[in-house]
């Protein structure tokens, strides 16, 4: 890994996931499997730290991060 900061890496990641074909493929795969989404408010304790209007799925989260 280069000397890039975490912030630099995350910024690059957001752009790639939202706009590159490779990134869209990754998001599509993760959304299809659902393996990394949360789909329920099973535990209020876990859900506490998330505003209720935040994205619940991969596709929502990465579809257009610039608009967040």
């Amino acid at each position, binding site marked *: 890994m280069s000397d890039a900061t975490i912030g630099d890496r995350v910024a690059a990641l957001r752009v790639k996931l939202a706009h590159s074909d490779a990134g869209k493929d*990754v998001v599509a795969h993760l959304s299809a499997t659902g393996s990394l989404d949360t789909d329920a408010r*099973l535990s209020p304790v876990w859900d506490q*730290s998330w505003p209720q209007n935040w994205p619940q799925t991969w596709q929502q989260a990465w579809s257009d991060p610039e608009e967040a």
Partner: protein
Amino acid sequence: MSVFRPLIVLQPTTFCNIDCKYCYLPERSKTKRMSPEVVRRIATEAFFSPVFDGEIVFLWHLGEPLSVPIEFYEQAFSDIAKIAASANRAYVHSFQTNGMLLDADWISLIRRFDVRIGVSLDGPAFIHDRQRIMRGGKGTHQAVMRGIRLLQNNGIAFGVIAVLTAFSLAHADAFFGFFRDNGIAQVGFNIDEIEGVNLVSSFSADEAASRYKMFVTRLIELGETERPSVKFREVWTTLRSLSRDQPHYNLANRPLRILNVDWQGNFSTFCPELTAATSEKYGDFVMGNILHDRLESIFDNEVFKRVNAEVDAGLQMCERHCEYWQYCGGGEPSSKFFQHGRFDVMETTTCKIHKQGTVDAVLEHLERRLADNNHMEHQ
């Protein structure tokens, strides 16, 4: 109105029916119980005080909540419902339980009052039974799984919180496979920390952060390929903070997002773990008593003012100097206190392992996935 829901952590009893090796609660052999008067005062203050808005979560915890008779909750839930109705306020109840005392009567109560359930379960028996034991030393895994089967057979959804020790980190596949094979879909983990009366952590070794990162990386890989899958709180919360240009939110390091109330009605804010702490500087962290004080009086309480000023100073240090700030929201005050004896500090061992380790694992995983996909596109 805030988009965040206030969390009120209530201690119905000091007692716990088991004796986990890493537990931070000092009075878990005593059977002190919260009075109905304390419950009613909490509800009245919570629903009518200007400090809370939105739906309130009552989390019954800080002792085994099912070790008090069901009648305790029949009355408590009924009283809270009446007060909520008079204030026209929404709320939910939640138990964080070891699940061992669940039976048909508890299932009935959980259904009637729509109680959310979190079960404490550390994974397969060979991991769980090392720490979560009876007072005589016998493991509790079998009894916990009986409770989980009861929840599942009755269609009651639940989440699991697993405490990770250094031992767990060597067993990612077994850890994942256990939850997958038992139909447990959502798991969060806490790490074995020095806090309260727990004076030793298995994570004190230097290599713990890298071992934790490997553990999480393996869980992410398995989550993508194994079916049925298991979703891990740490992963999805990190994904959300990585995906959006909004700071991660940490419930525990801002005042009155969590209100902790012990069995006597003593209240405090920030991390529930601080209810088990004492210090010369901050006393026993009591910031008022619900039987005598209004909730908003906390802002004039000297202990609160001292702790709040230090917590805030610590957060400012996190924000200025830690590159993980955006994805963490600042370290846990209780971790800072138990490790450093104060709150106006920045990084803790817990930060390095639990927070930074998760961000590193998720970020590197995504970067690898993107590199792989790019490579395939160019072939």
